[in-house]
């Protein structure tokens, strides 16, 4: 089961990953965007960590995810602010007021987050966006759990799928976001948003797996 403390560890780990990869994310964005994705996500996740309540016994997953989403919406701006913000807000909605999440509740929440991203940004598979890492992660997670895998294993497979999805953005021609303005020139570059999503899922695999 995943509790608020575990989710908090996840978000803190993601914030660390983002900070460590700030320059990478920004330079990927420099190639096909406007050179700010690392800066944006770092500003947002630093704010999220600052806004998260100290770990306490009565902390609940829903409010925690909602705080994360609201904070991202209020501090990031750009495309990733509303998109990541919506991801966490929809996850918060999906988990409602449960105090602990079963693996498949968590998987459903992530799926709801993905749907929020699509509702906001109208991305489709192959558009070269964060969708292309997040959707395979959701699929892999659900498949693994359906196969009877444990949470740790399922998250590891989701993380591998996110990585593969991220890598698969390289040859894509962007059709959404700033990279789309480049037309053919967007081909051959890895999408920054897909890259940060892979970090998000990897952080989940590292921090939530032992909750199984």
């Amino acid at each position: 089961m995943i509790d608020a403390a575990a989710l908090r560890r996840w978000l803190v780990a993601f914030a660390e990953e983002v900070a460590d990869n700030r320059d990478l994310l920004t330079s990927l964005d420099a190639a096909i965007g406007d050179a700010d994705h690392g800066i944006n996500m770092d500003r947002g996740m630093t704010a999220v960590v600052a806004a998260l309540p100290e770990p306490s016994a009565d902390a609940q997953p829903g409010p925690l995810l909602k705080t994360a989403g609201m904070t991202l919406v209020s501090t990031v701006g750009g495309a990733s602010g509303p998109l990541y913000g919506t991801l966490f807000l929809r996850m918060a909605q999906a988990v409602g007021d449960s105090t602990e999440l079963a693996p498949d509740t968590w998987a459903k929440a992530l799926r709801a987050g993905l749907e929020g991203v699509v509702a906001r940004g109208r991305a489709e598979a192959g558009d070269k966006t964060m969708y292309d890492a997040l959707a395979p992660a959701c699929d892999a997670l659900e498949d693994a759990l359906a196969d009877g895998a444990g949470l740790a294993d399922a998250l590891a497979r989701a993380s591998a799928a996110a990585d593969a999805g991220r890598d698969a953005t390289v040859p894509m021609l962007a059709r959404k976001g700033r990279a789309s303005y480049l037309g053919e020139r967007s081909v051959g570059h890895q999408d920054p948003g897909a890259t940060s999503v892979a970090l998000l899922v990897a952080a989940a695999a590292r921090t939530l797996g032992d909750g199984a």
Partner: protein
Amino acid sequence: MKKLINAPADVVTESLLGVEAAHPELRVDHQHKVVVRGDAPRQGKVGLVSGGGSGHEPLHGGFVGVGMLDAACAGEVFTSPVPDQIVAATQAVDGGAGVLHIVKNYTGDVMNFEMAAELCEGTEVATVVTNDDVAVQDSLYTVGRRGVGVTVLVEKIAGAAAEEGRPLAEVAAVARRVNDNGRSMGMALTSCTVPAAGHPTFDLPDDEMELGIGIHGEPGRQRVPLAPAAQIAELLVDPILDDHDFRGNGGVLAFVNGMGGTPLIELYLMYNEVSHLLAKAGVPVARSLVGNYITSLDMAGCSVTILKLDDELLRLWDAPVSTPALRWGV
């Protein structure tokens, strides 16, 4: 990186302090990074709110004032503002006649303004999205064209319509007409340097230039050999003229805009080339604008915007305006 700044993270905040100090006729909400007309809200007048990433100065804060914007939201450099800012700006200028959001067509800007509009309960909000950049191929499957130079003209002309006391739907319609009749294309000689990044966004050899750039240091559609101004003007004007029929009795407004690091002597030289090309194409110029109005930090380069005018748009363009960056008739 060589810039007149302190800590890179404080650039937007500190620049807004300077705007406030230099322009007592404006108010600055520092918490929300919003520049507001000193006399806002004006009862019965439609409020005009725009905003976007910083780094495009004077856009948008420099266009707040009589006859133009009522408020401008300043995001981080090249990053759209967040909904909270837009909500604060909208509420600050709501004089009961509704508020028009003027949004440049970038995914981030559109989504943040969209979320803000959803949150602005009790205020009638209309939104106009500018998308004038012919460098970007439009298609059903993509996000469409960027909003660039025409945004300045939309803000001026819709601002004049609002100042006349016209209702929200009409002001929005005027704004859309400007956007529909304007086309732009830009180029860069050098990259800009985002303060938080500390180095140029892209490397551009001494003998090449980027064609079809936006205003965020994005690379352009094409990297081509450096060319004389006359040829650059053709590379910018031809696709604009191909994209829209600008002939007509009203003439056009021809706007040569600098990207921030290009001095006026070069912009006027470019304007000379542009005016020749328009004359050759049988497009009469009724009004012109030459200068750094929608920039990309310290990037060297320029963009050309052509707006087809009609009697009403011409009258609204000529109407008094009094903002830090655009001022006449008052």
